[in-house]
């Protein structure tokens, strides 16, 4: 578990670095080196740290631990082949974590980041629909069962493309610089992260790294099925580069428009689900 956690952190940080690099290259900038995020995290770990005067101290510190805790739990569930319903729960609770980060500091930038995070809660629902669609096909929500199903019947990417699309959109909305990343809009400085610095920020970066690894890895497990380690790495890089392309060429949406688009996608997905339920 410790090795897996370490690999997830390092892999996630490298993937986020690659994300920045690809975006920069698409936009014809040199961009930072790929290991930039690793350096960031190390640098933050050794900076001086305190709690701001206006902050709510318990929440300010506690939320960092919660962030790392929930994603570690998610990683454990993925490794154990547990229920994706739990991952779905963790994913939705990440919203609360962002919210807590922003509100606990008392800073107006953090607060607006947090409020934006809360209003975009509709972005989680496509994941739920995707989960439900998978359940319709495989009859189980345990990741191990779903992987086994795909080993027999071929990847779900081909069987249920709309579910894959919904999950892709969900991952996209969690990537930095994406059209739906309204919580990190540049007019809010760093959004909900603004006031967390030093070790707290390093903790947040670690949580984000685990989150990126878990989400991308989960997508591959759910929609491509069992892969060899090498194929897994290649596939995760391809998936990330495709996400980076989308992020690089699209502008950020206005907050409420982002919410509305995500809500509309949810409605379409619900229609698909009803169709799935009715036809067989």
């Amino acid at each position, binding site marked *: 578990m410790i090795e897996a956690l370490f690999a997830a952190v390092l892999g996630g940080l490298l993937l986020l670095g690659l994300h920045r690099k690809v975006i920069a290259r698409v936009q014809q900038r040199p961009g930072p080196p790929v290991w930039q995020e690793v350096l960031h995290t190390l640098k933050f770990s050794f900076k001086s740290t305190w709690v701001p*005067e*206006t*902050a*709510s*101290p*318990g*929440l*300010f510190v*506690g*939320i960092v631990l*919660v962030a790392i*805790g*929930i994603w570690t*739990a998610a990683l454990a569930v993925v490794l154990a082949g*547990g*229920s994706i*319903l*739990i991952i*779905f*729960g*963790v994913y*939705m*609770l990440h*919203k*609360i974590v962002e*919210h*807590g980060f922003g*509100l*606990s*500091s*008392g*800073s*107006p930038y953090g*607060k607006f980041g*947090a*409020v934006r995070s*809360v*209003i*975009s*809660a*509709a972005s989680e*629902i496509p994941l*739920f629909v995707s989960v*439900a669609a998978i*359940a319709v096909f495989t*009859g*189980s*929500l*345990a990741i191990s*069962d779903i992987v086994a199903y795909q080993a027999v019947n071929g990847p779900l990417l081909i069987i249920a493309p709309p579910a894959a699309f919904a999950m892709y959109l969900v991952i996209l909305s969690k990537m930095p610089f994406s059209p739906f990343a309204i919580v990190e809009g540049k007019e809010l400085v760093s959004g909900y992260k603004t006031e967390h610095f030093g070790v707290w920020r390093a903790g947040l970066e670690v949580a984000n790294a685990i989150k990126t690894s878990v989400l991308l890895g989960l997508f591959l497990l759910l929609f491509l099925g069992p892969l060899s380690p090498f194929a897994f790495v290649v596939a995760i890089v391809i998936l990330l580069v495709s996400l980076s392309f989308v992020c690089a060429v699209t502008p950020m949406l206005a907050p*409420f428009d982002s*919410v509305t688009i995500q*809500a509309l996608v949810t409605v379409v997905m619900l229609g698909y689900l009803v169709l799935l339920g009715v036809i067989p």
Partner: protein
Amino acid sequence: MSSLGGAPWYILEFGDELVYFTPYTTTLLILALVFTVLALVSRPERQVEALFGTDAIYAKDTTVDQMRFRRFMAIACGCASMGAVVTGDLFNFTLFVALVGITNVGIVAAVKNRHVQNAAFQYGLVALTATVPLFAGAGIVAATTGTLSIVALASGTVPQAPFFARALLCLGVVGEGMAPFYAAKAEMFRAPGAPYVIMCSLSSLLIFLRVAEVVMVI
């Protein structure tokens, strides 16, 4: 049942109402517990506001009586969400959800800001309306299957709950937790007092996550 949130680890018996702990509900329970403890131990933050057109910056303080009341409400809300995620009885679940709705209103209603009070009132109206589909859903499940125990419903020994009843349950939880209406809930978050305000969004998410499981197993 075993395929969704995992097999129950432990079942607590209160007469005909069972409380059961699966990996899924336990995860949710622990999260509710963590945030309830955070609400209990944290002092509220001082929200910094900048006045437009001037260079004045001031920090909003939360008065002590307000803080005590809202902390009480936040803890009640945490307990209600814990109840909602672990209860194994459908009607009991709807009651816990209704309790979450009213505590959410309570957390923000104590704030003396006009915008916040307006939003809290509108939200309270929706929460009150949402009890109609909630209780109706539970009533229809009881009439068409003869039981309210989620364990019995999931075991497949009774008829499946009708689609309509499940839709009502979802609609009711959506109303109590305001899940898709966060856009309007943002008004309520103008209120200072992060540890308490955060319980509002946490509890709505938790009940939403739970109802997702419930409608899939019944």
